[in-house]
């Protein structure tokens, strides 16, 4: 516990003396990324604000480098912690360069004039986020993705050791989300920056975070490495998902399945069935599917959407018992959709299933023929 750069002890946060979340115990080594996740209104922003010194904690202590943050002066804290918030920075009539330069505030003299060294740091920060050529551009006239990068450069200029970001990817498209998080990762590795942020995108949180902190109710529900946290249907329980499902391994969401007596049997496998499953779900048609290997790409989607799913363990030939079960389901369905063109040696049972369906005069649909 001695080499922790950032630590909270029994931190209690809230507004107007009313505690929102209590007993927050977080420990981070230098250069680590911590992500807060939790349902809307769980208090992610409140925790971030309290750590950043924007909101006085109701109890407990935040330690930076083993020093209690509440014993540091405003000027000392300004050199330790920088923030990137969701609320827009008011940058009326400012160029991007000027916005970035505001990060130098804790280091400049009485009138806030920039020295040559300060200017150099501003240039470097803008270079780092690939915004150098936008330096003279008005801050109000750039895109959301660029704005977020400028805000990151501004924070870097402040030369903090701890960076706090409140949902930094909210307004970004996929490309910019990836770019932004890669950039963040690079800073952590290169400069030993420690990051605490909140994210809505769980699949990104699972990939970028060294630690994840899950907020629910009045306490931290889980805290640990992402592989420890994102297991066993935890995400669904954290967010109280009752309609639809969340697949933690692949980070995919599926809507609520159409339940009831299956009307269609889907022969799938090797990732060919997913789009068919979703199409049937959209139309609200209950379906059965099989025979799938449990390590197939189709399997998590089938489990989420199918009324009935016949699955085979491991990489062995599909057994006779499974074939028999599947045959009964085919009998009960009026229609069969076969997504496969060919069947491999281990899944010869699926080939027999198709022949059987044809022999019983089932209506056969083969989407790959189109």
């Amino acid at each position: 516990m001695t080499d922790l750069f950032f630590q909270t002890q029994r931190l209690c946060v809230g507004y107007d003396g009313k505690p929102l979340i209590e007993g927050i115990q977080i420990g981070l080594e230098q250069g680590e990324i911590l992500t807060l996740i939790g349902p809307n209104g769980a208090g992610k922003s409140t925790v971030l604000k309290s750590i950043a010194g924007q909101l006085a904690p109701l109890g407990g202590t935040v330690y930076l480098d083993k020093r209690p943050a509440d014993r540091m002066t405003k000027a000392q804290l300004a050199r330790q912690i920088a923030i990137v918030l969701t609320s827009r920075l008011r940058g009326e009539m400012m160029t991007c360069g000027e916005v970035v330069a505001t990060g130098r505030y804790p280091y400049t003299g009485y009138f806030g004039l920039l020295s040559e060294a300060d200017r150099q740091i501003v240039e470097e920060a803008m270079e780092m986020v690939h915004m150098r050529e936008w330096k003279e551009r008005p801050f109000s006239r750039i895109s959301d993705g660029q704005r977020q990068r400028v805000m990151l450069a501004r924070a870097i200029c402040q030369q903090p050791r701890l960076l706090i970001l409140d949902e930094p990817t909210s307004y970004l498209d996929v490309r910019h989300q990836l770019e932004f998080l890669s950039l963040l990762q690079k800073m952590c590795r290169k400069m030993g920056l420690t990051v605490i942020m909140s994210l809505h995108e769980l699949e990104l949180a699972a990939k970028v975070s060294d630690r994840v902190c899950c907020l629910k109710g009045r306490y931290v529900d889980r805290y640990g490495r992402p592989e420890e946290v994102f297991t066993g249907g935890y995400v669904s329980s954290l967010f109280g998902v009752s309609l639809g499902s969340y697949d933690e391994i692949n980070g995919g969401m599926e809507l609520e399945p159409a339940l009831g007596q299956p009307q269609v049997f889907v022969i799938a496998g090797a990732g060919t069935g997913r789009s068919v499953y979703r199409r049937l779900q959209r139309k609200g048609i209950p379906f059965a599917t099989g025979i799938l290997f449990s390590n197939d790409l189709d399997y998590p989607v089938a489990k989420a959407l199918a009324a009935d799913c016949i699955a085979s363990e491991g990489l062995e030939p599909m057994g006779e018992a499974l074939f028999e079960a599947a045959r009964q389901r085919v009998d009960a369905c009026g229609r069969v959709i076969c997504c496969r063109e060919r069947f491999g040696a281990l899944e010869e049972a699926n080939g027999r299933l198709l022949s059987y369906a044809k022999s019983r005069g089932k209506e056969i649909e083969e989407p790959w023929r189109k």
Partner: protein
Amino acid sequence: MGRKFLILVTLAAVFLTANLCVGTVKIPLGQIAAGLAGRPVDPAAQRILWDIRLPRALAALLLGGALALAGYLLQSFFHNPIAGPFVLGISSGAKLVVAVFLVCLLGRGIRVSSGALILAAFLGAMLSMGLVLLLSRRMHNMSMLVVCGVLIGYICSACTELLVTFADDADIVNLHNWSNGSFSGITWGNVALMAAVVSVVSFLAFLLAKPLSAYQLGEAYARNLGVNLKLLKVQMVVLSSLLSACVVAYAGPVSFVGLAAPYLVKSLFGTQRPLVMIPACFLGGSVFCLFCDLLARNLFAPTELSISTVTAVFGAPVAVWMMLLRGKEKAL
């Protein structure tokens, strides 16, 4: 940047000179130069220049600057370009307290020094400001706050009118002129005191340039950068109230200068940086008021217009223009 300051200084000099030359009695430039240099000139011209026009022009210069600066501070404080001492009812509050003060004391035959008037106006300004701040806690919508400010202004003006109606005759003449806003009747003693107050307060405002620049980013970012927000806010409120009070004590409420001048200056310089804006706003306000007072005195001479009439004619369209532009930018 330097060139733009030069433009403002030149404009101020031109209008200052024009204010000295032009009037019911025209004084040629040569006479002005001679008179200011202390060389012998026509005694009538000398008296008009030294006793009437010069103190009045200096008052317009100083108070115009003070108003614009007060407006700039309030706009920064509320993060809103429509804020200003007149719009938020601060000038009217100051006016009311000064009127009460005058009626009470003058009625008892007590003479009032202009320093005491500034204090009374400051008290009134702080009272209105307190009311506005109280309301702003409840109202997060800025336009509602402005509407409230305007209402406060009306209530205060109504009370002042009431006082004037029931005051003794001798006081009324004085009060009536003053409560509509005018730079007339300024003495050298007044100029000295207002110069002292305005220059000290403006200098103090200039010292706030750095924290003010951080405050403009929004409170969260300012706090993160290490700004002592509570202290800064108190400083902004006190300084802007002092500046507004000084104007009200000498010239009564003057409308729209605090709103229009900072906007025009901001557009001219293309920046919000307090380090530039504080001196530039002061100069801009001076130019604006010198220009308006020139018109107020001469447009319908010998009848004099109240200064607010002229500033409103030029300032209000600027305010409307500003709001239209803002609406457009938001739509983008």
